[in-house]
């Protein structure tokens, strides 16, 4: 068939024949083209990709802010950035990296790949994920805009009261921060609900819980962690908003409030947050280790238990951020033990990977190189993590550059390296083009060297007494050389990442065409075309193990689900444990209403900074858009 349907635009450059039946289902699942069509997309591939592109754009900006800070600190008493600007840059860098890059990026990976990995045609609530994306986009954009008009918050990403309270943080900066947090909470909660329901109910027939890819387990645990962690920061940020806007006194000690309350609420969210980022990243690592060793992972059950264990324990160690606040030693001692317990969960995963790799014929392509880089950095960060779990040690290094070094090792090593590994691994699937191998290897090597050059000296800086969050320092304290080293390293690191960004742009236009399964991977996302079909899978697949593709190669047989309609968006619903077919879910069609809802809510969230009346306006405005969102359509439209 040579006259290819425009509905199949992604495959327009391909010549493989397409059956009329496939063309029909592809039209059913088509995302409307054009500028206005863009606002109606609901397919998870569309939304997931947007999360990823947006989060990496924010990563780029926040990374440049990091470079600006390193330039300021290159010599003592430097005046590249004044204290006011530096504190804003520091606050925006931290906040953006945590809330606008790391969480949305791992959510994006999950939104894009979980349905493909579980063999579903879409997520359970496609319009909800679209809504979550617009909320994130608007919140993140306004937050960055505040920096460029000089209205950014300057009280740190942790916004301790009273410094962030009405008395000491005048202006709108902290209000903008709190509002942005609200956006991210909403967006993360929609993604969490979406992922939990999809993973529990939309798995391909036969994919019982113990056959789920490890990455899907990781996404599930992440989603549950978001559900339990976010309410705490919602409470905290709501209290802070009220203290600032309507003169409540939750954090004012003179009137019976407590500044420590903020710290408890913030870290009860803030510590799980780190693992919200880390857990899916470790899932990516497992995925890549399996593919590049061409073996089943050793200790599937142990790995799953370790992931679930991390998720649970992470809620019991927030006080290790508060060792210096003067809480009783006995209480803190429990948190020392709990904090170091993470070492068991991490250790099990690391040694399961080593056992998997032992003696395997490993392919050292770029994704695997990033994983190896991850290994070295993450283990180092984990070890310093156990050290700072100790009360007396932490009372020396807490709030120093030692901790800056520690969490960059954990977060850059534990999340950014796996995310980049994932980028090189899945880029062919998403775009249909391979990334350039040699550029990728150079990028990985330079980033690895640059990273260690930047952050390793910071351990020593912390031990030599350099506190965190300082815009400058005095000469004669012995910090000059190591700071210069760190700044040089930061530029090397940036060059490494820049190579990958360049690689992406270059390969989008000129990359080699990717086959459906370039790495010979075992999981279902590789069972469709690259890029995936609009409907993900022409026929939904029946699964018999945790490595469906390798199974088909061995047995030469491949079972699929029959009898699904192709003229409306359908995906199969299965039982929670064993994934036995249960029913068929009809998924909604593209619509702009989630976008309108997001716009109305954004206006009202930001309006709240100026007048409490926007609260009322928001309720009614959002309700009105929800009415249209959920308005029953004529049958022909739904179907």
């Amino acid at each position: 068939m040579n006259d290819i349907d425009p509905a199949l635009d992604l495959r327009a450059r391909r010549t493989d024949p397409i059956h009329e039946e496939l063309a029909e289902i592809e039209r059913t699942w088509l995302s409307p083209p054009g500028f206005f069509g863009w606002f109606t997309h609901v397919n998870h591939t569309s939304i997931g990709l947007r999360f990823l592109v947006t989060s990496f754009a924010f990563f780029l900006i926040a990374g440049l802010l990091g470079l600006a800070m390193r330039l300021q600190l290159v010599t003592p008493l430097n005046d590249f950035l004044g204290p006011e600007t530096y504190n804003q840059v520091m606050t925006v860098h931290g906040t953006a990296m945590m809330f606008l890059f790391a969480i949305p990026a791992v959510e994006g990976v999950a939104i894009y790949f979980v349905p493909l990995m579980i063999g579903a045609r879409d997520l359970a609530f496609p319009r909800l994920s679209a809504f979550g994306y617009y909320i994130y986009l608007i919140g993140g954009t306004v937050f960055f805009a505040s920096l460029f008009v000089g209205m950014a918050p300057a009280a740190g990403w942790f916004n301790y009261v009273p410094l962030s309270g009405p008395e000491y943080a005048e202006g709108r900066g902290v209000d903008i921060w709190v509002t942005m947090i609200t956006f991210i909470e909403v967006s993360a909660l929609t993604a969490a609900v979406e992922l939990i329901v999809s993973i529990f109910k939309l798995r391909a027939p036969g994919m019982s819980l113990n056959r789920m890819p490890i990455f899907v387990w990781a996404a599930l645990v992440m989603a549950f962690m978001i559900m339990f962690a976010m309410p705490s920061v919602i409470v905290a940020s709501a209290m802070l908003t009220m203290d600032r806007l309507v003169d409540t006194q939750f954090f004012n000690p003179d009137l019976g409030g407590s500044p420590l309350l903020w710290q408890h609420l913030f870290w009860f969210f803030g510590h799980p947050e780190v693992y919200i980022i880390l857990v899916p990243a470790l899932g990516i690592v497992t995925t890549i280790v399996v593919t590049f060793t061409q073996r089943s992972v050793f200790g599937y059950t142990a790995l799953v238990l370790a992931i679930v264990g991390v998720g649970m324990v992470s809620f019991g160690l927030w006080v290790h951020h508060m060792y210096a606040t003067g809480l009783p030693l006995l209480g803190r001692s429990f948190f020392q033990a709990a904090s170091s317990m993470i070492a068991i969960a991490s250790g099990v995963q690391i040694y399961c990977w080593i056992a998997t790799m032992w003696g395997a014929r490993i392919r050292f392509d770029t994704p695997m190189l990033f994983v190896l880089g991850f290994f070295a950095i993450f283990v180092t960060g984990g070890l310093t993590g156990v050290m700072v779990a100790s009360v007396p040690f932490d009372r020396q290094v807490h709030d120093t550059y030692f901790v800056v070094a520690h969490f960059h090792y954990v977060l850059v090593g534990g999340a950014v390296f796996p995310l980049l590994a994932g980028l090189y691994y899945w880029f062919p699937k998403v775009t249909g083009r391979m990334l350039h191998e040699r550029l990728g290897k150079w990028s990985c090597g330079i980033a690895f060297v640059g990273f260690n050059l930047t952050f390793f000296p910071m351990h020593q800086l912390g031990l030599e007494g350099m506190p965190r969050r300082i815009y400058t320092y005095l000469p004669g304290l012995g910090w000059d050389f190591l700071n210069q080293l760190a700044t040089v390293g930061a530029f090397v690191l940036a060059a490494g990442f820049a190579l990958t960004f360049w690689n992406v742009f270059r390969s989008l236009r000129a990359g080699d065409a990717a086959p459906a399964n370039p790495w010979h991977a075992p999981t279902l996302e590789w069972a469709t075309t690259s890029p995936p079909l609009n409907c993900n899978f022409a026929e939904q697949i029946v699964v018999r193990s945790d490595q469906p593709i390798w199974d088909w190669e061995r047995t030469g047989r491949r079972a699929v689900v029959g009898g699904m309609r192709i003229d409306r968006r359908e995906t199969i619903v299965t039982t929670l444990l064993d994934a036995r077919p249960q029913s068929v879910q009809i998924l909604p069609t593209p619509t702009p209403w989630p976008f309108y809802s997001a716009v109305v809510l954004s206006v009202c969230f930001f309006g709240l900074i100026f007048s409490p009346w926007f609260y009322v306006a928001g309720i009614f405005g959002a309700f009105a858009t929800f009415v249209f969102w959920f308005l029953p359509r004529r049958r022909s439209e739904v179907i």
Partner: protein
Amino acid sequence: MIVVGRPDHHDNPRRRQSPARRRLARRWFRAVSAMAAALLLTGCDGPQSVLAPSSEDARLMALLSWWFFGAGALILAVTLGLLVIALSLAWRGGQSRPISFRASMVLVVSGGVVAPALAIVAVTYTGVMIGDETEGADGRSATAPTVEVDGRMWWWEFRYLDKNGAVIAVTANELHLPVGERARLRLTSDNVIHSFWVPNLQGKTDLIPGKDNVLYAQPAVSGVWRGQCAEFCGMQHALMGFVVVAQPRPAYETWLADQAADAAVTSGPGLDAFLNNGCGVCHAIRGTAADGQAGPDLTHLASRATLAAATLPNTRGNLGGWITSTHEVKPGALMPAIAPEPEELQHLLDFLGALK
């Protein structure tokens, strides 16, 4: 385990190292290790360093640190060593040789469960023991001083108390302690959260509004160290430092008696300049009409080693610069800069320089 073949073009031929290359590698290794050693030795004995302990508390913490670094380096080496072995096995042999289930179990259980479990026990045990030792009042004599440490934006006020809790002397940004005695520091703040940290003597503790924290400091030797605020507290968090001086008991008592006395100069053109420029609204000089509370007590300003929260050495030139261009030294500082006539400024500097 499933082992599937892979396309040939991914094969990695084993690369052999030539002797010349090996020599080069060895030279590199030597250069890098020399650099690393040089790095490790710089600055560790500084006036604000965890690794140069001058008290028993800090010594225990430094000892713990070295144990941690040693154990950490060992675990890192073992883990990455195993990883390298795992990778190189098949690389050499060219064939996929899976490890046996039993061996894998041993690996995962010993590396992933037993070793971390031992680490948990060690960390918790040492944490409780050393924590108890360093945070407690044990060894405090009845005569050891009690000092109220008040965190301000962005400087430190130290108020020396007698047995009944009455204030003996007030000073700022310079804390004197008698050697060998366990001083009790009561940490308070009426503004934002700060954190009191003198790494050579003791771990940090926060100053939190509405909460009374206590810290004990017991210098083992005479000396001068630097401390710094460790909790982000706004614009000038970076330059909120202070000096700690440990001296033998007699010297300490002399110093305290000096600090408790009224100002050495209580009249003259310098004081007039001080009062006319409004300095007395915020600063107190005991024995004069200046009784402000918002800024540091200046009664014995000239006895201090530094100015502007341990930012500048206390010299006449620096003092003049600090008074007239305050915000070039510390942008955001709450003290307004003043612009007196040159002659008036000289009087003022003479006066402040005489406040021994």
